[in-house]
């Protein structure tokens, strides 16, 4: 596909469970970003990858959150021991190379509900 693809589109889980959210960036985009958007708020930055490495993970709220991008393309956001407060829409974005000139293109997001 031409855009950023996120799966699943919706995820319902129980408190304490482990979840994985997947992001397929636009082909050829080396930079990948994860954001989290709570109801009625703007997206908040979680982590940024340039290639395979996490260049900035300052937005991850705690050590229950982890993200990988082993081959520099697909990324997985992993949340351990989920809490009700983790419920939000998780958005992934990619850009051609990072840097101020590059526009971030967003996927449709994964809506995570923790019961």
């Amino acid at each position, binding site marked *: 596909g031409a855009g950023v693809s996120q799966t699943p589109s919706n995820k319902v889980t129980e408190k304490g469970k482990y979840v994985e959210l997947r992001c397929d960036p636009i082909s050829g985009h080396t*930079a990948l*970003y994860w*954001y989290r*958007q709570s*109801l*009625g*708020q*703007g*997206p*908040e*930055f979680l982590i*940024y990858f*340039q290639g395979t490495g996490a*260049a*900035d993970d*300052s*937005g991850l709220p705690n050590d229950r959150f982890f993200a990988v991008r082993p081959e520099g393309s697909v990324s997985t956001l992993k949340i351990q021991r989920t809490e009700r407060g983790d419920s939000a*829409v998780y*958005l992934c*974005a990619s850009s051609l190379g*990072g*840097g*101020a000139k590059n*526009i*971030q*293109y*967003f*996927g*449709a*997001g994964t809506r995570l509900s923790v019961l």
Partner: protein
Amino acid sequence: SQQGEEDPQALSIQEGENATMNCSYKTSINNLQWYRQNSGRGLVHLILIRSNEREKHSGRLRVTLDTSKKSSSLLITASRAADTASYFCAILQGGSEKLVFGKGMKLTVNP
């Protein structure tokens, strides 16, 4: 933490009218961007204005930036029902890769 703050938080207008949204922020920036979001899901990039630019146009969109006041405005002219969405400003600080978004503004265009 969110820096940009859109004003007003909600706006309802008739089709054909112009809509103006304002954004204020607190730090120095590399650029400021506006995004649109439908139904609380994917964000669509609308326009980017660099810190050394004062005004930019794209179709029915006009963006201004006043770095001395740390504010920006987005004008949508001749609005359409399809413009109904939430609009966010986002800033990119120098040396950073992360966009910092405001809380957003809900625009309703009535046919």
